[in-house]
């Protein structure tokens, strides 16, 4: 019987395998950031252990860093300590670090692919759940906890139970691909499979609706696999993948021979089977807007907020969850999404802060102004994205429209730095999580695509971007 792409990567990385036990899996790339690593390095020191493969390990600082003027000292002392700790740890253990002043600094899941560190067929880990992003290149990319970070630093391996395989097949063609984006596809998938629908599985996204997407759009899809509960998300590499990674700063020297090998070995066989399958037809899907406190609580922009009964389909716990969510979000069932007014707009995060995201958003706001009651910001995913955008003059479009134009980092996606919502503020956000308090205690998050966020900034409320001329 044939094998899936996941099974091929898994099998080629087994170091030790015993029946009914987890397998010891080799890790090809380890990405490290300041928040989930200090305790891991402490553990190494306490046990007198080294980093086994500094040459497979790369670090940057993203979660905590200020996105305002970088020439100024960091005011939050605990953040400053954490950033300094990463610098010291990287120095002590011989790890390459893209620090706050590096032109390569940025969100770890943006810089990995951009620098050619992410490669097809490899295993990649990072102490961050959105590591699934790298799966867009046909890599098995897993988010891990700090104990596992320490384990990988010490041994370059992980004990893993073999996940099940989940095929998500995206069929059809979007009628207006500038208005209905990769973000809308992945939010539609999560709305359908639920936030635990992928638990214990690795999703492989397949079908015309996926192969049609650019690499940056594919990253948006794989990024939110974890929001559907999945261990990882994968897309088989194709010519777009190989072209994207060619001639990057860290692209391997023997790239052509690697590509020849990937072309042969990194596809799911035609007779392979998956443990489960979900099919989404995207011919008629609409831009999506989340209304609740998890990413599964999402509806079409032209719909109204469902009642807890409609949402829960008879599940009492889900119904209670929806009631709590509406209360937290200060929303009522039956309200039209387009009638929801917003206070803030955040265009950023490892989900949607790449160059293409900024280009698409800039088309919506060109020559217009942010609504007077809204404050809006753009936080590019990396310093390199920022530089490229500035070379294209995009920053001028945003600044002229009264958007703030910031330095790279995770920023308001999780609000560890000063970029947070105030209690009660409502935000159209291109990030990945609308959990209670995620963007600031009492803040209310609506997850949307970059074009939807940009249109909301201009109008002060959500609008169906299919009505706009985006070409």
């Amino acid at each position, binding site marked *: 019987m044939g094998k899936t792409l996941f099974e091929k990567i898994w099998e080629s990385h087994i*170091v030790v395998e015993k029946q009914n036990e987890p397998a*010891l899996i080799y890790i090809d790339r380890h990405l490290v950031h300041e928040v989930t690593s200090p305790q891991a390095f402490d553990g190494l020191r306490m046990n007198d252990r080294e980093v*086994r493969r500094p040459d*497979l390990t790369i670090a940057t600082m993203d979660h905590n860093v200020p996105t305002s003027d970088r020439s100024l000292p960091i005011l939050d002392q605990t953040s400053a300590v954490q950033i300094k700790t990463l610098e010291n740890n990287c120095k002590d253990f011989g790890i390459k670090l893209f620090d706050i002043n590096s032109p390569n600094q940025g969100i770890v899941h943006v810089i990995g692919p951009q620098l050619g560190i992410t490669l097809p067929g490899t295993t990649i880990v990072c102490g961050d759940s959105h590591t699934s992003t790298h799966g867009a290149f046909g890599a098995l990319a897993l988010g*891990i906890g700090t*104990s596992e970070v320490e384990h990988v630093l010490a041994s370059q391996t992980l004990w893993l*139970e073999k996940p099940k395989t989940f095929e998500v097949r995206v069929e059809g063609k979007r009628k207006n691909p500038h208005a209905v984006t990769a973000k809308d596809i992945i939010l539609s998938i999560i709305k359908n499979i639920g936030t635990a629908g992928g638990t214990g599985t690795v999703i492989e996204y397949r079908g015309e609706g996926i192969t049609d997407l650019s690499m940056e759009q594919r990253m948006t899809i794989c990024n939110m696999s974890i929001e559907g509960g999945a261990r990882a998300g994968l897309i088989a590499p194709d010519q777009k993948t190989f072209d994207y990674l060619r001639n990057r700063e860290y692209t391997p020297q023997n790239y052509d021979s*690697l590509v020849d090998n990937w072309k042969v070995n990194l596809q799911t066989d035609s007779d392979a089977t998956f443990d489960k399958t979900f099919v989404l037809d995207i011919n008629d899907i609409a831009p999506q807007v989340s209304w609740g406190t998890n990413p599964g609580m999402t509806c079409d922009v032209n719909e109204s907020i469902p009642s807890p009964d409609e949402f829960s389909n008879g599940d009492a716990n889900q119904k209670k969850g929806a009631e709590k969510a509406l209360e937290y979000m200060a929303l009522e069932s039956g309200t039209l999404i387009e009638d929801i007014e917003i206070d803030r707009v955040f265009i950023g995060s490892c989900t949607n802060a790449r160059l293409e995201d900024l280009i698409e958003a800039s088309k919506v706001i060109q020559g217009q102004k942010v609504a007077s009651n809204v404050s809006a910001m753009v936080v590019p995913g990396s310093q390199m994205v920022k530089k490229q955008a500035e070379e294209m003059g995009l920053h001028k479009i945003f600044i002229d429209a009264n958007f703030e134009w910031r330095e790279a980092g995770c920023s308001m996606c999780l609000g560890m730095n000063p970029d947070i919502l105030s209690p009660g503020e409502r935000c159209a956000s291109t990030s990945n999580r609308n959990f209670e*308090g*995620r963007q600031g205690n009492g803040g209310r998050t609506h997850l949307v695509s970059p074009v939807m966020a940009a249109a909301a900034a201009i109008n002060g409320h959500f609008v169906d971007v299919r009505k706009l001329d985006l070409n």
Partner: protein
Amino acid sequence: MEPFHNVKSIVTPLDKVNVDTDQIIPKQFLKLVQKSGFGKFLFFNWRYDENENLKSDFVLNNSKYDDSKILVAGDNFGCGSSREHAVWALDDYGFSVIISSSFADIFFSNCFKNGILPITLDSAIVEKLQHETDQIEVDLENQVIKTSSENISFEINSHKKKILLEGLDDIAQTLEHEEKISEFEEKSTVPSVL
């Protein structure tokens, strides 16, 4: 890691589904560089009001649960962020067993690295346990939960069970496979980053 012993206590019922790790430990507490002292921040936004006074309607603030070591929660517990700080906070607060009808994968894995036992049971049984007011006993060796009225058995991977019961150092165990890891590295065709 300390070996896991049987746990006897009343349960703390947390009647919520999809409890994410942002709720278990909000982001402002992730800036610390050590593993200890997170217990006081557990469920921070549910436990405290804006003036940092205890909210009387949250279950952890009911003094009858002060000595509880067993948390019983709804479906998909620990979803979202990979932050192990969530497990450190639960552990530091005093929980050593978490019972739910399902767990998010990364959280589940993080529990075993810190000597916490996550138990998955049918949602009907979880709901029943949420209403259990007497002490219950969790016996990992025999994979059974003893309540005043019945014994409920549970499943656990034998490897994970061994790690908890013996309090094994994961990394030391792995490094015993040093030869195999080196062999793998010799035949690997994946180039270094640098």
